[in-house]
């Protein structure tokens, strides 16, 4: 073999070797790419699992089971003296009427314990429901009315899910079957969930109190953090000289953005409640704490918005004889406002979902009343979720999931608003 031939063989070997290893390397590259794709899909899958598991648990809470009962509104029980005054009507024993009606429906039930089990099929709030009906139209007193009454949570769960772990006893299940056969059971829209405050009874518990509390908290947070954040951003971006003090402020803002939220709760507890003596559990304190927490977010977003306004605008305003303050407030600020508002909405969404600092300032108490002002004791939606998640009843789990759905709906709305604002007012200079 000549040298030339040897070289040719060698070259072919190298080429073969390269081609072989290339196949392996390409396969490795492809595998790497696959791992990446799997990572993305894992993230999305987890998101999907979370949403579906919560939504599938929660959607049924928007419906409630109702029992149709024929009730004799005996005048002798409700209003024996025929005064028809509101006070008398308020105090009448409506629960007793419901019990009578149930007894009539199931005359076979005789034992005391069983009777009590029978009464338990209807919610303890059914009496109030009947009372409201009578108060609305006192002329129905003395007649026999058919009313759909709220069922107890055990019956509610059984009727909606029909599961084997029901807490209903066998004899109760027989009655339920009879009610069902008589078409005395139905599911209807659960208005209680949106109109009632918290309650120990799942079927009477609603999110109105928590929503109102959240509303006050967010109102205060917005009212304080928007002006404070925007003016801080204006100062830092437009007026501040480069010196130690400004640097200190900047370092501080960046650090505060990374401080765990629970530490803000400790601050609120020590400063607002113990030092300043503001009331515990009040939306005012919650708003103050969340203001401090969201300020860094708003300041950082507002500064970015101010930065995006081109210098030519500033120069033109100054050239026309505007003072620096006039330039900032009349020309730069309006142009930067959409960006600032977007940042603020995102900050508010963060504040709306925040739980931990509010636990610290005592917004975890059981509060059945709907708050009427920012100094009343209140709770907020995420804290309500936390409280319900702790309750052992299965019906509360359903309501927790439903409350989460409501919270997520609000967050989605806020984020869509932010995106819409950004799209609508985004300007390319």
């Amino acid at each position, binding site marked *: 073999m000549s040298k030339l031939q040897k070289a040719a063989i060698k070259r072919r070997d190298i080429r073969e070797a390269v081609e072989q290893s290339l196949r392996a*390397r*390409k396969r490795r*590259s492809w595998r*790497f*790419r696959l*791992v*990446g*794709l*799997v*990572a*993305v899909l*894992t*993230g*999305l899958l*987890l*998101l999907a699992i*979370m949403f579906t598991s*919560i939504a599938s648990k929660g959607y049924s809470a928007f419906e409630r089971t109702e029992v149709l009962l024929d009730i004799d509104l005996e005048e002798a029980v409700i209003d024996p003296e025929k005064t028809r005054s509101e006070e008398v009507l308020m105090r009448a024993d409506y629960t007793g009427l419901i019990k009578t009606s149930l007894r009539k429906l199931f005359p076979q039930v005789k034992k005391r314990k069983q009777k009590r089990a029978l009464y338990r099929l209807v919610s303890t709030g059914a009496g109030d429901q009947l009372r409201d009906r009578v108060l609305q139209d006192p002329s129905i007193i003395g007649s026999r009315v058919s009313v759909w009454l709220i069922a107890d949570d055990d019956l509610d769960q059984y009727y909606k899910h029909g599961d084997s772990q029901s807490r209903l006893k066998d004899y109760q299940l027989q009655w339920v079957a009879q009610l069902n056969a008589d078409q005395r059971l139905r599911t209807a829209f659960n208005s209680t969930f949106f109109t009632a405050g918290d309650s120990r009874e799942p079927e009477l518990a609603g999110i109105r109190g928590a929503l109102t509390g959240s509303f006050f908290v967010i109102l205060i947070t917005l009212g304080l953090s928007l002006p404070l954040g925007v*003016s*801080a951003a*204006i*100062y830092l971006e437009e*007026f*501040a000289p480069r010196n130690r003090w400004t640097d*200190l402020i900047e370092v*501080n803002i960046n*650090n*505060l953005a*990374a*401080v*765990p*939220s*629970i*530490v803000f709760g*400790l*601050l609120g*507890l020590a400063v607002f409640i*113990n*030092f*300043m003596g503001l009331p515990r559990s009040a939306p005012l304190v919650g708003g103050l704490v969340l203001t*401090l927490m969201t*300020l*860094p977010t708003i300041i950082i977003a507002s500064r970015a918005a101010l930065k995006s306004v081109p210098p030519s605008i500033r120069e033109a305003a100054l050239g026309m004889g505007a*003072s620096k*303050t006039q330039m900032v407030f009349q020309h730069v600020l309006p142009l930067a406002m959409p960006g600032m508002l977007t940042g603020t909405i995102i900050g508010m969404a963060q504040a709306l*979902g925040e*739980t*931990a600092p509010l*636990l*610290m300032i005592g917004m975890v108490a059981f509060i059945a009343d709907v708050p009427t*002002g*920012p*100094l009343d004791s209140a709770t907020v939606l*995420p804290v309500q*979720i*936390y409280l319900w*998640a702790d309750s052992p009843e299965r019906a509360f*789990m359903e309501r927790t999931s439903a409350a*989460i759905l409501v919270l997520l709906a609000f*967050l989605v709305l806020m984020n869509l608003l932010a995106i819409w604002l950004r799209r609508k007012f985004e300007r390319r200079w």
Partner: protein
Amino acid sequence: MNLFVYFIVFVLLSIGAYWYGRRYSLGLVSRDRRRLHSLPQYYGYYVALWSVVPAFLMLLLWLFLDQDLIVHLVSAGLPESIKSLSPDELGLYLNDVVNLAKGNITSSEGDAIMQQAAAHYRHLLQISHMALGIAVTGSVVAGAAFSLHRIRPDFRSRPRVERMVKWLLVLSSSIAILTTVGIVLSVLFEAIRFFKIIPLTDFLFGLQWSPQMAIREDQVGASGAFGVVPLFAGTLLIALIAMLVAVPVGLMSAIYLVEFSGSRMRAWAKPLLEILAGIPTVVYGFFAALVVAPVLRSAGESVGLQVSSESALAAGLVMGIMIIPFVSSLSDDVINAVPQAMRDGSYALGATRAETIYRVIVPAALPGIVGGVLLAVSRAIGETMIVVMAAGLTANLTVNPLDSVTTITVQIVTLLVGDQEFDSPKTLAAFALGLVLFIATLLLNVLALHVVRKYREEYE
């Protein structure tokens, strides 16, 4: 409600003052605005600022001081027998007085002296309210009169208003510093009080954590149960599990989305992943406690493993899910920042895409990635709701992820939620833990920033 009323009164007052000042200045020059130094609205602003701002500051000051001052005065008027009580008992006594005066439910009905003190308190409160009303009104009137008195046609109101506005801006930007100072002071003071009862070394190196033991002083082990090591261990265990989920998934999806996927997939996959970051933590907590934990438990049972229903694994896994978008968006940014020329160079030498990524891009982006991971760790350590809902309460010193552990944040919440007496080591311990948490996250953030700055490769 009072506050709202004050707020509305102030808004109305400032509008009125603005309107009057503007009219007044125009009146001075018989509506010929050219003869004024500044535009007429600046005279309005001037009057409004002078009448409202001092009064508002006074109101704030009063809100701070009145309670303390009145309680102090009441306690000065108490008979000697009560004044000679120990400070703690005196504080409780005064608390009862205040509650009695406010008509709240009190622990004791109160004797004649307490009734008298309560009446004294009510009386002082009335005086204070009246004095406040007079002072605020006086300050409004004085401010308005002073500013109106100074207005002349050649009065330079615009520069003055602008200076005042600038001071307001400075004030609001200083709130960030005030917040930090507030955090440090509030946490530090209570923590120092705690360390006076429990020595620092016992706290930092103790292996036992059972704060419930220390409610009553006569209980055994009242001072030996505040060792923070199990809490550190639990926190780190859960954070580690979270990182084991979040770093691979987050980093790989960032790499995939930047380097492999088309722009269309990137356009929808990235925002979808970031939805995970917007979900409130209480939702993750619910998911961990009521979905993941039972699944893990039954899965463990089916292979014969004892999984606690509050296992560190459940909390850690879900926390990992929460942190995925955090890691992925930070890595996304740094990978995107690696210049295209480096990729092109690597391809030109014959490297495949994968080789380019792990030989060129990842090393170049490493400082940023490490910084991002450190920030994610700090986030995991400070995360509260997931662990409160899904992790346990008992402090086990263990590395078994199937066991129940507790974390610093869980303990802060359990120590402070519910009834509290403010001087027991139990509640003070929460602040000491808060201090530890604050310092730990601060250090991690500083470290992350340092890593990013120091090892950043400068291109171009």
